[in-house]
């Protein structure tokens, strides 16, 4: 458990960067729509944030799974066991 906690604190910046990338992507997509004839269908700022959180929720799960698979070995494979 401690091992997992330590790994996660190391990965914190990666997770935050992931959210930042997703938020940037959502903002860019919304800005393009805002600047088009379909402006009516663009999201408000709060809507963009909600969208980013929703997308992050999905991406976060797969990122965590990847980190765990890469860095946390099953007990039987750990040294000395």
């Amino acid at each position: 458990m401690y091992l997992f906690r330590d790994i996660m604190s190391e990965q914190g910046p990666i997770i935050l960067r992931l959210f930042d990338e997703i938020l940037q992507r959502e903002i860019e997509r919304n800005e393009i729509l805002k600047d088009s004839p379909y402006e009516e269908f663009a999201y408000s700022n709060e809507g963009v944030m909600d969208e980013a959180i929703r997308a992050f929720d999905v991406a976060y799960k797969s990122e965590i799974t990847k980190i765990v698979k890469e860095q946390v070995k099953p007990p039987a494979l750990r040294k000395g066991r």
Partner: protein
Amino acid sequence: MAIILDEVTFLIRLLSDNWSAASTTLNSANKIHSAVPAPKFIDVRSLEPKQGRRVDADSDSAIVVVYEDSNSTEHPTIDHAIRNETFNFTIHARVLYRRDLENADNAATQYNASGAPTMTNASGAAVAYQPVKTTGRDRLQSVYRIIRHIIENNSLRPTVTTIISSGSNAGTHKETAETLKITGRSEANDRGKKLLGYKLSVELKRHGRSVI
């Protein structure tokens, strides 16, 4: 020269080419409220700045935005001679629903002239929640069902055909994939802008393509 579609365009063409038939089929089968004309399909990468133009939100009250989320590629043979690709897309249907909010009595029980409820549940009690202003919601539901119908009916070997009648490109051009499926749906509403939306996750696979 062949007509080559990128993956987002492939998906948009598949939806737009099949929209009218799917809409009519579902309407005839009483699966949607009314036949919905094809909404505007948007690839955000190719949207032009508005330059003063603006769509009439009343006549064009739904859009479908398609974008690619991710792609993974693998070469399953030892000589790397063939390629398997998986593409993940989001199909985001957005509908304006401001008209749904006009009636404050949106969830009232409806009664006929003699005071009896016009709708009852299985136990005979009046239906207490029967929304009466649902234009936006109905439209979104119809748009979703049409998209689902098109994808489900093209889940195996989806094909987009382009026929060019004259010129050096004259002929029939076909673009294909192996499988196409919806992997999930989530609500994506924006109360601030009075927008209703559904986001559909879609997976497209191309298998065994030669690496030329």
